[in-house]
Structure formats: C-alpha cells, structure tokens
C-alpha cells in the first residue's frame, strides 16, 4: 500500500540490495484503479468535452497511461478540486517562458515536498547496489501531447541521434552522463525499459534528472526525426534550412527542439500545459495537455486549471500590477520591499500576501577573488585572517534592521538549518560585529601603516581600497555595500562600489581583474548529501571566489590554475571522496567541505532568510500558505504541484 520512498539523504541509498527506488506503490495504483472502477466513467474535463464528443480526442481513460501517477493528496495536504479557469502571472521578459517548465515540474523523477526523490514521469526506477546502473521504467500507454506513444525510442533518440551526433553536439553528451572520462553505456531493454550504466558509481545522475532545469534525456523522436539528417532526405532538409535562412540542419534541429525554452508550439511535450503562443509576444498562453500523466486520488486527470497565462512586463511595474490585482499567483520579481505595499492592497484586491522561506543559503555574499591577478591583493585575500577581519567588521544586524525590517537573519554563506547537513557554527562563525578583533587581526597580518585618512596601507604602499564589483542588477546590493563601507572605515579599509553588467563582471572575474564582488549567496541552502557540493569546492569557473581554479577543473587542466592553497586542495580531496563514496561517505565529505568553508570564509555571507512574498488569490486552492521558495531543489512552486491548484469559484 505504501510506496517505498527512499529519502534522497537517507543512509543506504545505494546499499539496499536491488533497491527499488520507489516502484511507485503498486498498491496505491491499484487503489486508484479500484476507485476508478467504482466510478468507471470519470467526468470528462469540460475543456475537452467538445473535442471528445466530436471524436477528435479519445476519452480521458484512453488518454491516460495504464498506470498514471497518482498524487497523494493526504500526504500533501490538498483537497480534490474542480476543473477550469486561467491562472495569470507576470514575467519580466519573454525569455522567462521557461518558467512554465520550472513551475510545472514534471520530471522523470522529482522531489516531493519533503525533498524525497520519487518517480514521476517514470513509473519506477531501479538503482543497483553499487550505484552505477540505473534502470528506467516508462509508464505503459504514456503519450506525448500529440497522442503518439512515449517509449524507449525517445530515450534512444536523445542518446544516439542527439548528444552523440557530432554536428548537433560537437562536445558530446552532457557531463552528468559521464563518470570521469567514461560515457554512459545506454541500452534499450524493451519498449518501456532503458538502462544507463557505468563501471563506477554516478552520483550526479538522479539529482540531475530531478533538477529544476532538467536535462531532458528523452525527446519526441517521432516529431524530431523530420529535422534530422539520419532520417530525412538531404535535399529536402536542405530546402527547409535554406528557406528558414539557417546555416545547417543542426541549427534547424536545435531550433525545433527546445524543451526548456518552449519556443516551438508544434513540438510535442509531456508538460501539463503546452505553449500556444509564438514568440515574440507580451502575453504567452499555455493550454492544458490532454495526455498528461498525473491524476488526483479520484482518478481525475490533472491539471485542474485549463490555461496558464504569462504576461510580460517591465520588472519595475510588477509590484504595481500585482497591487492592482492583475495576477492570480505571483512571487517572481516581488521582493520583501514590496511587502508593505502589497499588504495594503490586500483588502481591495481579494488576494493574500504570504511570506515563504527561501532556499538561498544567504541572500547576498561578498566574494574575495582568491585567483585575482594582482600579486599583492592575491596574497592578502588568500590570508584567512584578512578575510575573517573583513567579515567581523560587517554590522549584519544593522543591515537587517535598516533594509529588511529585522525579518532576515545575519548568516554566513552556507546551508540552511533545514538541511540535514546543518551545524550552527557554519552559520555563525566570524559574523559577530567586532571591530576590535577585526583591527587586531589586520595588525597581525602586518597592515599596520596608515595614511592621513586613517586608511591602512597595503604592503606595497597603496592604500587599502577594496573595489567591490556588482552585477548592477540588484539595488539592494549597493545599499548593503554602503552600510558595509561605513563599518569597514572603522578598521581602516576603504570600500568602493563599481557597478557592471553581469557579462562584464564575469569576464573580469575570470581573467583575474576583479578583486572582490557581491552576488547572491549559495543556491544550495537545502543541500542534502546527494546534492553536488559544486558551490563549496573549486570546480566551477563561475564561482566568483575562485574562478581560475574552477576553470582549471572544468577544462581538465587546459586553462586556469591548479588550486594551490592547502585548504583548497583539501576541498578537492573531499570532493573526490564525495564523488566515489557511498551515502555515509558522502555525508562525511559534505560535512568536511562545510567545515573548511566555515573556517576559511572563502565567501563572506551577509544576510539570509529574507522572506519571499507570495501573492495568491483568495479563491485559488491547494497553494500552501507556508512554503519554501527555492530554485534548486524546489523549482519555486514546482514541488507544490501547480497542476493541483484549482479555482473555487
């Protein structure tokens, strides 16, 4: 009866013999079957009634897979809903239509509200003991939105004809399908079963499939083959390419196949809502998918809501538009600063403003660039006492009071208390405002000379002026820096703010020109042992505290610099242990990584837990009042399943 759910972070993830990773409770399915037998003819969805009676669309029972995914409403504290209605929300630019895929959160396997991984599009998934063999079971009778069957062929097409095609993917399959240099061995076992295996365990596979931006290792082969050189007459294909003014068939194929960006309204999909508006536009309409695979406990096909509508608007107007009652559900673009205004319009507009927790480890953090080119700065920034002193001289309580009504929490840039990896010292080390101690530390470093303005002098005689670069997107960052600059003056450090554009800052940081920058804190505040610790070890070029080390790792040593700080080397060792280890070893590795980060202050966290306002119309049901607003894991509304939201009108 109960589905066997293996929490992503429970011990023995890979040790259980023939671990059936939640063969979504056959019992639950049979129960659903009984219910649906009890009331054999499910009421047809009103939106499709016409089409069904005209014979253009088969009835609901035939559209669903043999064993649809039954959402456990009791566990998720939801009520059975009614069909119909539109859900309007606002996005900042048309590129954000990808949020439809994020919010919908239909994944091969996905997180539930308690961050356990459970099969979703897949009926089940088997992982062997060693964690190097993954067998995926597709739901029988599952169909693409155009009614064509969804089968192992769609996985094969992705593996053989897309990522292993030199013209489409010149660099080969995505990284998570590799262990070391070894690509996956892909097998089709039968029409509904495929297997990915490696000689070594692959810890990235499952979390990647469940990611907010999923890799889509299945593609609608029956549709895409018409744009693929292996399946189409070269002359015909060439004619289409010429007509569209493109450079090659590969570009055409990529254009037609954007599962995340949703530009192509003809492309079949497995999402709950299908895009029906072509770019460019300022209003995008998504219409329900008649072949969606999820049902409520009564066997009613989801989603409840017929259409999802994204209006595109300038970000600055969004709070005003929300306050004027132009949306049904909105969290994007809103920030805590809009809270009082929105709260004011609550009574007239028939909506409620909830405050959700966020998944960011920190709302903002300073990133000293340990791989900057200036030798004097580099030496200074790499001195842990210097970084600690800078952190101690930040008055986080003041920032909290001045900017966030005291609703936020002073914190370091680390995991949140809700994460199973949390320890209080991660959050609290070196964040207490202590000018005296900070001054003492800087004296100890040897920065004892000062100029006439009381600013300390660097070893080569330059005044200690830190230029903090910003992405120029978030005015709150500038305000924080203003406050930090005041308190840093007390330790003889001068702060300058330099506003740049995201691309420019990235490039400057990569090349080592940036000394320090400010940006959002870690995304993975809710990390579990299965989460890749990418933000805490030097393996990514876009980690602003060590871009060159990250580049070194990402390019297999062809570019960048090898980490040469002992602590960084240690981090890399622990990362190696995380990659190879079992669940217990992973937790240990994670803990070690976090210990080192907390001790070394590689990034200086400022403030955290800044609540996210979420505006919900009063008669929109099944939207939780309290939730976690997080990109990864969580997909913002995704894990709360917008396909179960409904209108009580």
């Amino acid at each position, binding site marked *: 009866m109960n589905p066997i759910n293996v929490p992503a972070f429970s011990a023995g993830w890979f040790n259980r013999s023939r671990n059936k990773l939640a063969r979504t409770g056959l019992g639950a399915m049979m129960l659903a079957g009984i219910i649906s037998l009890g009331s054999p003819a499910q009421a047809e969805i009103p939106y499709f009634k016409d089409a069904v009676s005209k014979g253009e669309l088969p009835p609901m029972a035939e559209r669903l897979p043999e064993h649809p995914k039954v959402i456990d409403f009791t566990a998720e504290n939801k009520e059975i809903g009614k069909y119909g209605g539109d859900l309007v929300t606002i996005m900042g630019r048309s590129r954000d239509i990808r949020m439809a895929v994020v919010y919908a959160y239909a994944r091969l396997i996905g997180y539930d509200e308690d961050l356990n991984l459970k099969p979703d599009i897949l009926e089940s998934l088997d992982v062997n003991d060693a964690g190097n063999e993954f067998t995926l079971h597709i739901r029988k009778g599952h169909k693409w939105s155009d009614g064509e069957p969804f089968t192992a062929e769609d996985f094969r097409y992705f593996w053989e004809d897309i990522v292993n095609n030199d013209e489409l993917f010149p660099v080969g399959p995505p990284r998570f399908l590799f262990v070391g240099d070894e690509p996956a061995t892909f097998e089709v076992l039968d029409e509904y079963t495929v297997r990915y295996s490696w000689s070594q365990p692959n810890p990235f596979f499952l979390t990647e499939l469940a990611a907010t931006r999923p890799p889509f290792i299945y593609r609608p082969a029956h549709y895409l083959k018409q744009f693929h050189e292996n399946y189409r007459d070269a002359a015909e294909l060439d004619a289409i390419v010429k007509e569209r003014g493109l450079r090659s068939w590969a570009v055409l194929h990529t254009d037609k196949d954007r599962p995340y960006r949703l530009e192509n309204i003809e492309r079949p999909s497995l999402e709950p809502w299908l895009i029906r508006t072509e770019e*460019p536009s300022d209003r995008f309409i998504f219409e329900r998918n008649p072949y969606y695979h999820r049902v409520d406990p009564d066997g009613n096909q989801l989603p409840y809501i017929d259409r999802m509508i994204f209006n595109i608007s*300038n970000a600055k107007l969004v709070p005003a538009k929300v306050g004027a009652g*132009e949306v049904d559900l909105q969290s994007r673009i809103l920030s805590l600063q809009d809270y009082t205004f929105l709260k004011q319009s609550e009574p007239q507009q028939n909506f409620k403003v909830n405050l959700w927790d966020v998944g960011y480890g920190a709302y903002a953090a300073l990133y000293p660039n340990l791989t900057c080119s200036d030798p004097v700065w580099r030496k200074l920034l790499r001195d842990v006492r210097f970084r600690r002193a800078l952190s101690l001289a930040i008055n986080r309580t003041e920032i909290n009071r001045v900017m966030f009504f005291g609703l936020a929490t002073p914190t370091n840039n680390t995991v949140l208390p809700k994460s199973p990896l949390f320890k209080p010292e991660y959050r609290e080390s070196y964040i207490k405002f202590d000018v005296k101690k900070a001054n003492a530390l800087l004296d100890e470093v040897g920065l004892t000379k000062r100029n006439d303005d009381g600013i300390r002098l660097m070893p080569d005689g330059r005044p200690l002026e830190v230029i903090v670069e910003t992405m120029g997107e978030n005015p709150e960052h500038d305000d924080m820096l203003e406050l930090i600059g005041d308190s840093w003056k007390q330790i003889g450090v001068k702060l300058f703010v330099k506003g740049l554009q995201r691309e420019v800052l990235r490039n400057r940081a990569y090349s080592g020109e940036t000394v320090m920058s400010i940006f959002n804190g870690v995304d993975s505040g809710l990390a579990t042992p299965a989460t890749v610790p990418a933000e805490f070890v030097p393996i990514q070029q876009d980690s602003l505290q060590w871009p060159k080390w990250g580049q070194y790792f990402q390019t297999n040593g062809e570019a960048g610099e090898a980490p040469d700080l002992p602590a960084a080397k240690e981090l890399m060792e622990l990362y190696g242990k995380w990659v190879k280890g079992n669940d217990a070893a992973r937790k240990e590795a994670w803990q070690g990584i976090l210990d080192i980060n907390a001790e070394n202050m590689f990034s200086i966290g400022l403030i955290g837990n800044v609540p996210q306002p979420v505006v919900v119309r009063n008669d929109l049901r099944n939207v939780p009042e309290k939730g976690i607003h997080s990109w990864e894991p969580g997909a913002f509304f995704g894990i709360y399943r917008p396909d179960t939201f409904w209108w009580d009108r």
Partner: protein
Amino acid sequence: MLTFLARRLFVMMPTLFFISVLVFIIIQLPPGDFLSTYLNELQAQGEAVDPAKIAFLKQQYGLDQPIWLQYFDWAWGLLHGDLGFSFEYNLPVTEVVGDRLWLSVVLNFSTVLFIYIVSFPIGIYSATRQYSWGDYGFTLLGFLGLAMPNFLFALILLYYANVVFGTSIGGLMDPEFINQGWSFAKVMSVAEHLWAPVLVIGTSGTASMIRRLRANLLDELGKQYVVTAHAKGLSPARVLFKYPLRMALNPFIADIGNILPQVVSGSVLVSVVMSLPTTGPMLLAALQSQDMYLAGSFLMFLALLTVVGMFVSDLLLAWLDPRIRLQGGVSQ
C-alpha cells in the same frame, strides 16, 4: 524645386551609409558579443565549454568572420529589406519586430501631434497676452512638464489611471488583446492606454515649443507692418494669422527634424518604464544582450526617421518661406 528635392534625397544616401557604419561599430564596441553572453549562460549551468564548441557556435552564428564582412552581410541585407537574424529570439528580425514598429509609429506620431496641438494655441496666446496671468500659468505648466522626470510622471499617471479608470497598468492595450487581430474593441483599448504615454512624452516637448513660438511671435508683433495693418483697420485676429504668425512659424516647422528623433529616443525610456510593446524596450534588451542585428536594425530605423524628418522640414520650409534659397551658395 525638383533639383533641390533630388539633391536632398541624394545627400540622404551617404548620410545613412555613414550612420550604418557608426551603428555597427558602436554595437561592437562593448567587450564580448552575443556568444560570450550565451556561453556565460551555459557555464552557469555547469556545462563545460570547450574550444571546439565555441568555434562551432561562432561558425553557426557567423561570428567567426571578420567584422567588416559581418557589416557588409548586414548592410547588403538591409538594402534588400532583410534586417538580419536575431540571436536572442532565433528569428529573422522582421518577424521579431512585427507590430512593434507600427505601434511605435502610432505612439510617436500621436505624441508629435499632441505637442503641436498643445503648444500652438498656448504659444499664440501667451505671445499676444504677454505677461498676463494666462501667459505665466501656461508657461509654468509647460515647464513643469519639462522639469518632471518622465519615469516618475509615468508611474504616477499609471497609478491614477488604474485607480480612477481601472485601466490595466502598463502596456498599450489590455492583456486580453495581445496577439489578437485588430478589432474595434482592441483599438479602443489602445486609445485608452495611449493617452498616458503620449502625455508623458509630450509634456517634455511642449515647453520648448511654446517658448519658441512665443518668442518669435513677439519679435514680429512689434514690427512696423503689423502696426500698419492694425492702423488700416484689419481685425486683430486677421492681422495675426495673415502676417506675423506666418513669419513666426518658420522655426516651428524647422523643428520637425529635431522633434522626431527627440520624441523617439525620449519614448524609449518611457516605453521601458511603462512596459509598452514598442521598439524601445526591445532595443534596450537587444543592446544589453548584444543581439547586434536586432539592435542595429532599430538604430537604423531611428536614423531613418531623423533623416526623413529633416527632409520633410526642409520641404515645408521651402514651401512656407520664399526667402529660403533653394540653390544654397550657388546663386551668389
């Protein structure tokens, strides 16, 4: 007259050519290109980007060619009505621009019309009743419009339009009408939304217009021939409209060339703030992401408007004021 026309038209060609070169250079000036922006995005997702892929993408987007060749590709396309390809949207620029161009034209034309309709009577009024309360009052109003930051005024107007009339905030029509064909209801919705941006962009242009007309008219009003006309018993209105006004109109018309680009570039900011589906916000986004052909096409469109505006004002001036010589220095 015909040779004058032909010469003016001929001069427009090299002007546009130089503008197009400048536009292209300016777009290329900031570091990086669309691809580096895109690669950053890839890297943010943890994808390792190796040199082979970069070269592949460069080739796909045609960014591996030398700049001058990219320019000629683009310019050659422009001559054939092909505005190039937008990287950001993965569509030909013509398809991306769509309705936006027309809505921009409607907005800018309405604004110019608004400026003329408002400043013409006020200018005449305040010139004929110099130093009166009305003169001061209207002038003050004009200056207020000039002094008030456009974006602030826009936000205030949006707010009150919403509170008082229930107009949806931002945009040029109610959201339901986006992507729909043109209907009476849609036109009405556009009209309902259009007045606010027109007012915002327009007010900043009226003050200078009023002052210019007032000053010119005042110059003329004191002249001998006006006094004579009055003395001969012509009615004040007839005197005014027949002689001094016609003289004073000269700079008013000469301004068309200036006011068009002024309005168009002024409307970019307001369009961004008010989220209007015109070319402005798209131009800004294209410049930010270095979507060079899209940005280039918009800038060329602005340049064309300016050049055409100048041309029109030249024509009108020549027609209005016979004192203007068509041959330039030649006749001396």
